[in-house]
Structure formats: structure tokens, C-alpha cells
């Protein structure tokens, strides 16, 4: 009893330490976004200081970064939806069908994650230029969708595999078409998995830099592409960098909070059976 209580205390201490390590840098970022340059560069860490609100309007209004937030949202939102819409059916086929070369094809989907983005980027840029799609949000959305597809196919295959085949068959017996069974019965059952996958896709697309930089127009660039513009030969505008980074993480934190329950359950579903 006492041993277990002591153990519990140790466990909580370790977890508390982990949370502190994970959160403190972000907290520092948050504080930095309310500091003046002199406070930021102070040699002794300034935990207490006279806060300034100036950094937020300076970057979002003065530097016109507000639209970038909207660009980030559209790119990440659309590409997440698109990856799920295209990837989930493919994953379903991989989970249910047996056909020659299935495993090779499946592995092939995975290998698309392995090429260094820098090498794919230039040809992709030339391709979108040739087709006239360059400098549109579509180009970025499509690029993000294609590299997220492998993740969707991989994760969702596991989720579908976990849903007993008999459920499909029962739905078909009830007079649904094969597609109807997939859309009406299987997909809702896999919702937690979809949520978990969606969060990961969203994070990857939201934080992606290289493709967004190369393919988006100036007006369409997302926040990640805007951040380096705050590192100038006249000094890094640390307060503004922090303000952008704080704002940029908020949507993900909210999104992740909302689907948190599904996130863990969803991964449970998928990964073990993958």
C-alpha cells in the first residue's frame, strides 16, 4: 500500500517534469510575444516585465499577416478533407480486398513519403508552372494532399481492418449497395480513426514550409512562409515571431483538444492492427 503510494508519487513527479519540459518553451514564447525588444534581449531571463501588446498588431495589421492565417487555414483544412476523401476509400480497398500485388502497392504508397522533399519540389514547381496552376492555393493543397495520402492510407487501413467484415456483409444483406455499405455503415464506425488521421494531416499541412513557399503566390502564402520574413539583417523581430508562432499553434491546439478522445482511441484502432 505505502509502496504503491510512493510509486504513485514518483510517477506523478516524473509526469509533472515531462509536462514542464514540454510546456515551458511554449510558455516562454507566449511571454516573449508580450515583451519589448529590450526585455527579450535581457541577459537575465525576464519573467516579470511590463507587458506590451504592440507585437500582435505590428505583425498582423502593420505587416498584413492576418490574411496569412486565413491562407494557412484554407490550405490545411482543404488538404485534410481532400486527403481523407481520397485516401479513406483507397485504404478501405487495401483493408478488404485481396488482389495480386496488394502489399507491393501498399508499400509503394509508403515510399512516397521517403523521397526528400527538396528533390520533388523543383519538378513539382515546373509541373505546376506548365499547367498554369502555380501561385494558386490549389497547387499547395494538391501537393499537401499527395504527401499526406500515404499517412491516410496507412492509418485508415488499420482502422477499417479492425471493423469486422460481417458488418459490411450485414449492411449489404439489408439491401445497401456495396458503396452504400461503405459510406453509410463502415465510415461512421471508423469516425474516431478519421478524426485521429485528420489531426495528423492537419498538423503536417499547417506546419509545412517548402511546398507552400514554392507553390503559393505571395498573397496566398501561409504563416509558415511568413515567419522567416521576420528574421532580418536589421535584427530578428523576436516579439513578432513569437506572436505569429503563438497564434499559429492555437488552431491546432483547439482542434486537437476537440478530437482528443478520438485521437487516442483512433490510434488504438489503427496502429495495432496495421
Amino acid at each position, binding site marked *: 500500500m505505502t509502496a504503491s503510494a510512493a510509486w504513485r508519487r514518483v510517477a506523478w513527479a516524473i509526469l509533472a517534469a515531462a509536462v514542464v519540459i514540454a510546456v515551458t518553451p511554449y510558455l516562454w514564447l507566449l511571454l516573449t510575444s508580450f515583451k519589448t525588444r529590450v526585455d527579450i*534581449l535581457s*541577459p537575465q531571463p525576464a519573467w516579470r516585465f511590463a507587458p506590451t501588446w504592440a507585437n500582435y498588431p505590428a505583425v498582423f495589421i502593420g505587416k498584413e499577416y492576418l490574411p496569412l492565417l486565413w491562407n494557412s487555414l484554407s490550405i490545411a483544412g482543404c488538404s485534410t478533407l481532400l486527403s481523407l476523401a481520397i485516401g479513406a476509400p483507397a485504404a478501405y480497398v487495401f483493408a478488404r480486398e485481396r488482389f495480386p500485388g496488394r502489399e507491393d502497392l501498399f508499400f509503394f504508397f509508403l515510399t512516397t513519403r521517403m523521397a526528400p522533399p527538396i528533390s520533388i519540389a523543383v519538378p513539382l514547381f515546373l509541373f505546376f*508552372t506548365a499547367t498554369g496552376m*502555380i501561385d494558386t492555393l490549389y497547387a499547395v493543397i494538391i501537393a499537401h494532399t499527395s504527401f499526406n495520402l500515404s499517412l491516410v492510407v496507412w492509418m485508415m487501413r488499420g482502422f477499417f481492418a479492425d471493423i469486422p467484415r460481417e458488418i459490411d456483409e450485414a449492411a449489404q444483406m439489408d439491401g445497401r449497395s456495396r458503396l452504400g455499405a461503405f459510406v453509410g455503415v463502415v465510415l461512421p464506425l471508423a469516425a474516431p480513426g478519421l478524426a485521429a488521421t485528420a489531426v495528423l494531416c492537419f498538423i503536417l499541412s499547417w506546419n509545412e514550409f517548402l511546398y507552400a513557399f514554392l507553390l503559393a503566390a*505571395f498573397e496566398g502564402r501561409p504563416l509558415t512562409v511568413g515567419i522567416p*520574413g521576420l528574421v*532580418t*539583417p*536589421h535584427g530578428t523581430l523576436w516579439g513578432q515571431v513569437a506572436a505569429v508562432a503563438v497564434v499559429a499553434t492555437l488552431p491546432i491546439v483547439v482542434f486537437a483538444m476537440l478530437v482528443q478522445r478520438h485521437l487516442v482511441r483512433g490510434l488504438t484502432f489503427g496502429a495495432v492492427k496495421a
Partner: protein
Amino acid sequence: MGRIDGWLRGLAIGVLLWQVPQSHAWTLEEAAKPYKGVTLRTIGESLPPLEAMKAMAPEFTKRTGIKVEIEMYEHSEAVNKVMLDLNSKRARYDFILQPHRELGKFVANKHLQAIDRFLDDPKLRDPSFDPAKVLYPGLWKEISWYQGKVYGFPFTALTMYAWYRADLLNDPKERAGFKAKYGYELQPARDWKQYRDLAEWFTRPDQGFYGTALQGKRHEALWYEWINFLYSFGGDVLDVKAGSECGPVIVNSPEAIESLEYYKSLVKFSPPDTLNYFWDDVMALMQQGKVFELIMWNDATYAVAEDKEASTVAGKMAFDLVPQGNGGKVGQVEGWSYLVPASAKNQAAAYLFIQWMMAGQRTPRCLCRQGSPEARLCQGVDADQRSGQAEGHAAAVGRDDRHPRARDLHVPGGSEDRQGRARHVGEGHLQAPGQVRAAQVSGQVTDAWERHCGR
């Protein structure tokens, strides 16, 4: 009838005579008429000069009906975007703002339109605009000309000079102590030995104060800093007269190696983190009052020496030329230029805008105060500005043909090869002092230079 006829004729001739010279007087509105409604698009580095351009552009639009869209990116983002645009021939930009080092690459690959065509066109050329008069000729020739042809005008004029803490230079206690130890007066360094003496004297790690700070990060900044030393020591990378020429690779000459050894010797008078600094960090250090002397860019002057909000040493700075070595007085010529891509859709309109920016006295005061990264002399700015004087002095040296100029290579070829030099400077730091091998540029890098020079 005849009389009226004659009268009418007379009137008609009179009107004609009155009108003819009028129609020949060049006006921007007239010249811009054919391009009304056009939208120009340009790209550059997100810094005050470009912000100023953005603020001024609406006035041009009001007069001409030509809109100007300005894209502001970070330094290397702006360079990469343009490089891809030119190579894919998509012609997004009607004119571009690019640094000196890119010029040769662009010209050799036929990406640029030489602008003599516009300068010679009476419909476009503002007769009152005489670039040779308003621009520093040395600067213009170095950064906007390539092999005898003109491709644009300077957008910013950058140079580097030595920054000192004036308050410490004038401190009686420091002066007495320094003289007792080194046997001469405490003053801005005349030569590199004195520069190192100063660095040594003011290095007090226990107080968190250092003599100097080097920009030792693996970054462009390292290259630009080191060439001040290289040229001042009498070295060069290629044995040439202008940055657009090719010549024998002499980066391993004794002078060049000596300059690197000297550069390395300053590491011990710099803060411990000095090998991870670039332009931003050394500026922040100076603003925090933690360094005595630096070799730094002119366009950062305002933020350190004047801006009381950002700097704890505002009003306490002194400036001077980079110390002299065997190479004599040296000033660096650097800058970004307005260039017109060969594939651009609205070249003439773009030229009109560039000319409008270059011609009148349109430089806002605020810009001049930033240490005047302007291609023209800033007039009407407080004459007693110390930074302004130093800038003028260094610029005069850098842009005067009589003095050797520290300048970037801009023969075609990749900047990684140039950065290869920076890498070796960085690696040089890691070797034990006095190890000359580290100061030699490897065959791989010299080969690359020779390859770019077509040998």
C-alpha cells in the same frame, strides 16, 4: 477672305508652334499613357527600403494608372523565388530587386533585359534623369553593370565599416589604462594590429563584455564580413579588376591566408557563441551594449546608434573606416539592384516606375536615417549625424575608383561555391590556431570557381 485666311493660317501656325515644343516636353503622364491599367509586380527583401517603396507606389499609380504590387520576402526566399521564376520562364515579375551576387548568373543565362534600350528611347527616358549624375558611378558600375552593359539601377547601397563605442573611447580611465599597456592613445584603429589591441583590451568575460563579435555562423554573413579582411590585407579571390570578370583563382595567396589567420585570431576576443552569429546577432549584442567594436553594415546603423527604443547604446556610437592593411583603404561595395527580366511582360512600364523611383528626390527621411542604404546621397538629413558621416566616408572609399573595393564575386555559378569559402572559414575556426592547412580553400572549391569562369 484672303485676309481671314491668312489670319487663320497665322493662328494655326502659331498654335502649332506653341504646341510642338509642348508635345516634345517629356512628362510621366504622357509616357505612361500606353500602359494605363497595367499592373506591375515586383519582389524584394522585406526591409525598410522596400516598405518605403510600397508607401510611395500609390503616388505613381495616381499619376500613371499603373498599379504596383510588391512582394516582400526574407533574403534567401526572395532570391530563390526569383531564380525559379526566371528558370521556369513564367514571367511573374515585371522587374525584380536582387543582390549583387546574382547578376552574373542572370546575365550569363540570358534572363535579363539590358536597359540601354529604355535609356535610349525618347518616349520613355525622362530627359531630366541623368543616372551618371545622381548615382555613385563606382557603385552603379559594380553592382548593376555586367561586362560593359547596364542592366539596372542600384536599389540599395550597402557597405560595411567599423563601429566603436564612443563613450568608452572617451572614458578617461580607459584611455589611461590603455595607454599604459599599449603605449599609444586609445582611438579608432588605424590598422589591424590596433584593432586587435582594442579587442583585447576591452574583452572582460567576467563582466559579460567582449572586445568584438564575429559573424561566424555558416551563413552569407560570414562571407561578407571576411571579405573586408581579405581585401584590406591585399588579397582577393580572383585576380580581376571588377566583380564581373574572371581571372586566376588567388584565394590561397599568402595575403588571403594571412587575413584568415588574423580573422580567426579575433575569435578569442568575441563572445563564446560567436561561431553561431550572423548579422542579426551581432547587432543585438551591440544594442545590448555587450561589445566594444564591430565591422557591420551601414543599414543597421539607425537601429543601433539612433533608435532609443531598441538600443541601449543609442547616441554612444562612433564609426570609422575598416582598419587598413597592406591593401590600403578598403570599402565594401554591395547592394541590391532593380533589374528587368528578359521575359517580363511589361518592361517599358517597369522601366518608367524604376526611373520614377530613381529620378526625383523621393527618398523619405526615415530611410536616410536608417544609415542611408540609398544609391544616392541623402540630402536634407541632419548633417551632424555621425552615422551619416561614416556612411559617406566608407561609401566614398568603396565607390571611388581609386581605391581597391571589397566586393562579392558575381561571375556565374552557385553561391554554395562562394559559401564553400564561408564553410572553410568556419572550419578554420575549429582548427588549432596557426594551422595553415585549414586556411587553404580545397581543390573542390577552387575547381568550381575555375569551372564557372569557363576554364
